[in-house]
């Protein structure tokens, strides 16, 4: 019955979110306590699932090759713990941010349900189960994008849905195919034996490639990247934080599951698919970082940056070697934290000053020094200033790229550095202009720090980020456990 923990971690937030539509709270604070309590329960169950040993269980057999299965292994522990952590931080933040927003009940209901769906993806034991939760996540998260109900939000939301469904449809081809030939496609570290032995590799290669493109949509990989930069900035900041921090990572997670736990690395390594996917990820890295540099809208800039940073991770996954994979997983954790911090502090800037463009934010560091400090920590981490985390993950990624061999490897290594350069180009001006606007801007600097709940949650995330990045021992040990089973 150990699987009950994992199941509960999925069901509690979904049920809690659904109940929120029925329950009527007299005071906002009661609702807030309810939301936090639900997530704390979810976190407790996630923790319990993480502490228990590995589980693989079939819950329900719908048809042959169509089973509802759960699996708890190191990879799902890693992603589920990260998700629930970010969700808790963002939730505490959102109480301050959403205080005066409309339709809060709807927001929190779907916010919780999304959390449940994400847990479901992490604990899914086969492709079909993962697909169910994957779609559930899309459906549960679109009201978050829609929240403002402005025409722009409608447009972004429509785009989000179209892309997500297109991506899921592409993935679905592969899901059916692989479920069919392996009778259920239950995740197995190192790849499913029946798929490895399957004769018709030519079709399989094409289908695998299309499938990765489909999952790549959630991760913002080129060519299905355009929704991300519309949807993430349009959502309210707490939602942007989880969209960029966690939901994009679910795309990565699905790709890792498909590549390492279904088809196996031997099938992909050295093939045209690997080269093509590396190029696509490389192009996304470039697109994201260059366009972030050319965008003035702060949240949109951060969204572009997500495109490039998540593609770092994908690059690490597609390189299929230990160093790169280590870098990728490290970057998953670092990026989840730093992008959350960035979106949350961007939200705080907007919340207090109602300015949305970087060019208007000169001197913001004088008004909100603490929030800006947190932003700075995250930004330096993203640029890769040692000893912060981005430096560590980037080191492993570039090493991994070089290990790949050939000219592509040097190109990719150079690309990662170029992208870091651009990230310095789009992040440092925010900080520099924020702290040092020059004497021309010497207006009255009133203290505009956001409310305590926002400040504390951003601060917690930033502190956590600096601790795990300066002393990543525990994290790397955890990741080493995952890697040992895969290579």
């Amino acid at each position, binding site marked *: 019955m150990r699987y009950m923990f994992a199941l509960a971690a999925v069901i509690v937030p979904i049920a809690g979110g659904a109940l929120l539509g029925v329950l009527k709270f007299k005071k906002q604070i009661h609702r807030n306590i309810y939301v936090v309590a639900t997530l704390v329960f979810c976190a407790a169950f996630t923790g319990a699932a993480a502490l228990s040993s590995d589980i693989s269980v079939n819950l329900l057999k719908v048809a042959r090759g169509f089973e509802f299965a759960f699996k708890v292994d190191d990879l799902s522990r890693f992603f589920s713990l990260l998700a629930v952590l970010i969700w808790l931080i963002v939730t505490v933040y959102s109480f301050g941010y959403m205080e005066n927003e409309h339709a809060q009940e709807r927001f929190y209901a779907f916010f919780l349900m999304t959390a449940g769906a994400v847990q479901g993806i992490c604990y899914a034991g086969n492709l079909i189960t993962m697909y169910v939760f994957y779609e559930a996540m899309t459906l549960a998260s679109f009201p978050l994008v829609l929240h403002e109900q402005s025409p722009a939000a409608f447009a972004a939301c*429509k785009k989000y849905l179209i892309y997500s469904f297109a991506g899921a449809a592409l993935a679905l081809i592969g899901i059916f195919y692989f479920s069919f030939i392996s009778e259920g496609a239950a995740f197995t570290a190192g790849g499913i034996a029946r798929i490895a032995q399957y004769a018709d590799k030519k079709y399989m290669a094409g289908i695998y490639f299309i499938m990765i493109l489909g999952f790549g949509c959630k991760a913002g990989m080129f060519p299905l990247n*355009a929704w991300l930069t519309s949807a993430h900035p349009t959502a309210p900041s707490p939602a942007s934080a989880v969209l960029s921090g966690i939901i994009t990572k679910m795309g990565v997670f699905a790709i890792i599951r498909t590549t390492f736990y279904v088809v196996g690395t031997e099938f992909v390594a050295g093939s045209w698919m690997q080269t093509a996917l590396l190029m696509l990820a490389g192009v996304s890295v470039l697109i994201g970082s260059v366009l972030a540099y050319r965008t003035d809208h702060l949240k949109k800039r951060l969204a572009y940056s997500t495109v490039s940073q998540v593609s770092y991770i994908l690059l690490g996954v597609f390189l299929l070697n230990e160093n790169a994979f280590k870098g990728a997983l490290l970057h998953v954790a670092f990026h989840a934290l730093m992008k959350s911090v960035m979106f949350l502090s961007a939200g705080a800037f907007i919340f207090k000053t109602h300015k949305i463009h970087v060019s208007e934010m000169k001197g913001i560091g004088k008004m909100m020094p603490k929030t800006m400090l947190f932003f700075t920590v995250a930004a330096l981490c993203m640029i890769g200033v040692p000893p912060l985390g981005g430096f560590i993950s980037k080191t492993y990624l570039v090493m991994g790229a070089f290990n790949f061999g050939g000219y592509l490897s040097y190109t990719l290594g150079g690309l990662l550095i170029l992208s870091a350069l651009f990230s310095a180009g789009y992040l440092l001006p925010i900080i520099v202009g924020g702290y040092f606007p020059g004497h021309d801007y010497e207006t009255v600097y009133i203290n505009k720090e956001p409310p305590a709940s926002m400040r504390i949650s951003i601060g917690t995330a930033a502190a956590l980020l600096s601790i795990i990045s300066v002393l990543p021992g525990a994290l790397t040990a955890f990741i080493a456990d995952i890697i040992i089973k895969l290579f």
Partner: protein
Amino acid sequence: MLLILLPLFPAAGAVTVLIAGRKNAKVRAYTVVAVCAIELVLVLMLAGHFSEPLTARIGGVADFGLNLTVGSFRYIYLVLTSLGWLLAALFGIEYFSHHHNLNRYYFFLLLTLGATMGVFASADLITTFIFFEIMSFSAYVLIVHDEKRESIEAANVYLGVSVISGLILLLGIYLLYHALGTVQIDSLYAAANGYANKKLLYAACGLMFFGFATKAGTFPMHVWLPKAHPAAPAPASALLSGIMIKTGFFGLLVIACEILRHDVLWGNILLVFGLATMLAGAFLALLSVDLKRILACSSISQSGFITTGIAMQCLLGTHNALAAYGTTLHMINHTLIKLCLFMLAGAIYTETHALGLNKIKGFGRNKTYLMIVFAVAALSLMGIAGTSGYISKTLLHESIVEQIAYSAADKMLWFYHVAEYVFMFTGGLTIAYMLKVFIAVFVEKPAAENAEAYGKKKPMRPLSAAAVTVPALMLIAFGFFPHKLCEKIAESALAFLHAHAAAHLPHYLSYTCIQGMLITLALGVILYFVLVRLLLMRKKGSANAHYVRGIPEWGDLEREFYRPVVLNVIPSFLAVFCRVLDRLGDMAAALAMMAYGFIKDEVYLTASKREGDEPVVGENAVLDTISSSLLLFSLGLLAVLSYIIFI
């Protein structure tokens, strides 16, 4: 344990200072001095490891751990770094008595100290890089300190250059690690020696060279230096010029003495950069009219001398003792000279609130002590016999002469002759620009409006005077006891530079050495009269004679060339490409929707406009609709086609 404290203790001190600063400004200033003094004591306690290296490791930090070691050349610079910071902190007590934001300044000052110590103590290149970057970023706050428009501008240039060079350096280190499988500094030579793919090795070293040489102010990456060093407050400029530049040389020495030890090609490349740098820096110094800017440009020029010394170490192979002695001593001298001169500039600035030569002209006429200290440092910089600068320059000169003698049959012989001429000529320029400063500040009469203010006898304040006296005294001692002090110190650095002890050292007072100095001196005086007095002054002879800037407005390499190229041209070029790709999905989606008859939906079609704005369905709607996307797409297609056809 002691070794681990070197980088960590100042960081802890920085936090303490931040807390102390909330209570009392005086307590804070003395806390800073105390932290620096303790740091110096810590270094001195390691004196036993001067010749036998000691290593330590801080595991787990940034996953790779920090590997530290001490001894030889490293030890010299650990002493000089902590000493420099102590002097700067002492000087700062009086200099900063009316400044704002000192909590921030002192916090980052101490952080920079820890990081600089870390660079010099680092045992592997990843550790070097970690500390190097921390140093670069914390020094930004020192430069931007007064938050004036010019300072912010200069600091931003510094930051941009630091980030770019830092990342390129990092790429070089990655490549090196990929090639050799180690970045442990003392095992690099063994690994590189047996490595077959020399191309990759040169690529890695080239990238690392870019990173380190930028910090060292090498031409043409020097552009940040004449802006950033003068913008910082005087004690910080002293540290930037005197010590932080040397972290770049630490890296250059690792490349030249470990990875590419005795590599002739590398030596020739370095020599080109060295000569170009010394010449460019000296000219820039001569043409400038701002005291701190002249000193900063002089730092560039002196960097060129040091780079030349390193080049000679590569070229001379196993006979490179003279070059190794000269490089080490010139680095030490330059550190002391610039500590002294920048702090003196600060002392002048506190009284006059100006740094332009025309403003501060005649300030030092009746200030004997200021003049003596300044003269000691200036003479040493010029390399006049009897000073320590003379010793190091003679050694460098002798190493070029030696190279000429060794390569009599080499087809590069002409190049080494050129090197010698450039070396002498730059020596002359050095004398000319220092004469310019000295005569302007200490000999010429002040402008009428300042005459009264400057006429007052006002001695330097005690702590500041003490801070500038220490390096001056050291310079004198080094100059008077070349065999007992200079050579002993240089000898201890040889282990790091992998040079043999010199079989014979030149007699510093021999005819040939003195002759070289005299030629340079004569050249300098002539250059001074021809260039400065004739060409760079207006209204000569009259009461309001003044110096003019020799560099035209458009001569700013950074503003006119690097900045537009790096910030606009390259990104725009890439952005066109990326924008097309970014819209690709949208275009496909739009086409698909057209096929399904969704064309009426204007909202979707304008969705790519800036989010948060109302969708515009009117005059500008065209710009961000499907038609513009199609247009971009066709342009991209056109580009691709033309690429395929023509290339």
